[in-house]
C-alpha cells in the first residue's frame, strides 16, 4: 500500500509539473488525443438490429483513415458562447457496401466527424476512441445537416454502434446491444459476417430504415418561430 501511494504521488507530481510547463509554452496546437468524454445523449431513435442500422445509413463503407483535419469552428447560437472545432477523418473509401445516395459514382473519399476540440481539449464520444491515420474499418454513415437542415459535405455515424475498426486481429466497436447479439467477443471474421448479413437484410428490404422527424425554425435564426419538420 505504501509503494502504491508513493508511486501515485510521484506520478501526480510529475504530471502537474509537466502540465504547467506545457501550458506555459503557449502552444496553440490542438491535442492529438482526447481527454474528455462526450456522454451518450438521449437518442431520438434507437436500433434493434445491425440490419436496421444499415437500412438507415445513407452509405456503408469499408475504408482507411488517411488523415485527420480540423473542421471549421462552430459557435453555438444558444447564447452559451461555446465554440467547438470538429475533428474530421479523411476516409479513403475502399469499398461501398451499400449506398442509398443514388447515382452511379461512388465516393473515393469521405470526411467523417470523429469528436471535436473545445477550449483546447479533445472530446471523444463515449465508447469511440479517436480513430487515427492507418485505421481500417467499416463505417455506417449519414450525411450531416446544419441547423437549417441544409446538407453538409461531411458525414457522421448513424449510431455509435456504426463503426468497427480492425486492428491487430481484433474488431473494435462501441459497447452496444447490436454487437452483443453477434457474440460476447467480436472477431474480425464474426464482424464481417454480421455486417454482410446486415447489408443483405437492408438491400432486400427485410430490414427497414428507422426514420426520425427533424426540424428547422421557419424564421431563420429564430428558435421561437414555428418549426418546419421533415421525416428522414
Amino acid at each position: 500500500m505504501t509503494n502504491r501511494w508513493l508511486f501515485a504521488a510521484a506520478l501526480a507530481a510529475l504530471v502537474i509539473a509537466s502540465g504547467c510547463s506545457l501550458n506555459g509554452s503557449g502552444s496553440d496546437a490542438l491535442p492529438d488525443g482526447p481527454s474528455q468524454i462526450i456522454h451518450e445523449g438521449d437518442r431520438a431513435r434507437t436500433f434493434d438490429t445491425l440490419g436496421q442500422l444499415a437500412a438507415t445509413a445513407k452509405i456503408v463503407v469499408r475504408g482507411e483513415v488517411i488523415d485527420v483535419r480540423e473542421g471549421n469552428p462552430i459557435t453555438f447560437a444558444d447564447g452559451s458562447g461555446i465554440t467547438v472545432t470538429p475533428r474530421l477523418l479523411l476516409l479513403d473509401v475502399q469499398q461501398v457496401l451499400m449506398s442509398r445516395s443514388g447515382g452511379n459514382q461512388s465516393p473515393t473519399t469521405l470526411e467523417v466527424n470523429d469528436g471535436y476540440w473545445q477550449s483546447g481539449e479533445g472530446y471523444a464520444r463515449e465508447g469511440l476512441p479517436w480513430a487515427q491515420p492507418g485505421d481500417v474499418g467499416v463505417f455506417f454513415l449519414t450525411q450531416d445537416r446544419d441547423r437549417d437542415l441544409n446538407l453538409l459535405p461531411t458525414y457522421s455515424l448513424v449510431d455509435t454502434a456504426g463503426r468497427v475498426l480492425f486492428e491487430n486481429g481484433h474488431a473494435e466497436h462501441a459497447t452496444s446491444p447490436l454487437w452483443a447479439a453477434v457474440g460476447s467477443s467480436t472477431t474480425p471474421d464474426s464482424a464481417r459476417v454480421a455486417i454482410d448479413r446486415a447489408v443483405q437484410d437492408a438491400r432486400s428490404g427485410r430490414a427497414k430504415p428507422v426514420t426520425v422527424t427533424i426540424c428547422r425554425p421557419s424564421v431563420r435564426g429564430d428558435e421561437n418561430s414555428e418549426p418546419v419538420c421533415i421525416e428522414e
Partner: protein
Amino acid sequence: MPMTRSFDEVNQTARALLPLPSVGLSTAAATALMLALSMILPASPAFAGHGAQANSGTPDDRNHYIDRNSLTAKSDSATVQGVSQLNRTVMNATFSGSGDVEVYDDYYGTGGDWQSVSGKVTCMGYTPLYTHCDLYLMQYNLTYVAGYSQSQADQVGCHELGHTAGLGHRTSATDTDNNSCMRSGLSTWRYFDQHDIDAVNSTN
C-alpha cells in the same frame, strides 16, 4: 424567462472557486492526474451505480441551481418536469440561482455527436479531486425536440436532469417494466421510477 448569460462567464465564476483549473493543468496532465488519483481513491459511486454508460458524474452536492438560458417554451416546460423529478429524490433543485446546471436549447443540426441526439449533458467543471461534477452543461437539440409533443420533450428534460444527478442510461434489460425516463429513445414516459430514485439517493 431568464436572460442568456455566456456559458464561459458562468464557467469562469465556477472555476474561480476551483483550485486545480486555476493552476492551468494541461489536459494530458489532468488526465494522468486523474489516473494517479484513481489508484488511491475509492471508485466513484457515480460510475459504480446505476448505469455506467452516459453517466456524466455525480454532482458535488445535493443543491442544484438550474439556470434556464432563454429556452423555448417547450424546453422550459421540459426542464420544469425534470426538476420536479429531481425533487422526488434527496436532491434540492431550484431555479433560484446558477452555477450547477446551465440549460440551453438550439437547433444544433445532425452532425457529429448530435446525430439522432435530442439532448445531452456534459460536465464542464470538476471538483478539485475530479471526483464530482461542479458544473453541468445541458442542451436540448431542437432539430429533434421541436418535432416532439410536450410529453416527449418532458421525457428529455427528465432524462437529462437525471444525468446531472449521476444517473446513467436504463435499457430494456434494466427497466423491464418500461417506466423510467432514463431509457434512451423517443418516449412519453417523463418520470423517474423507484430504481432511479433509489440510485440518486444512494449516490448523493
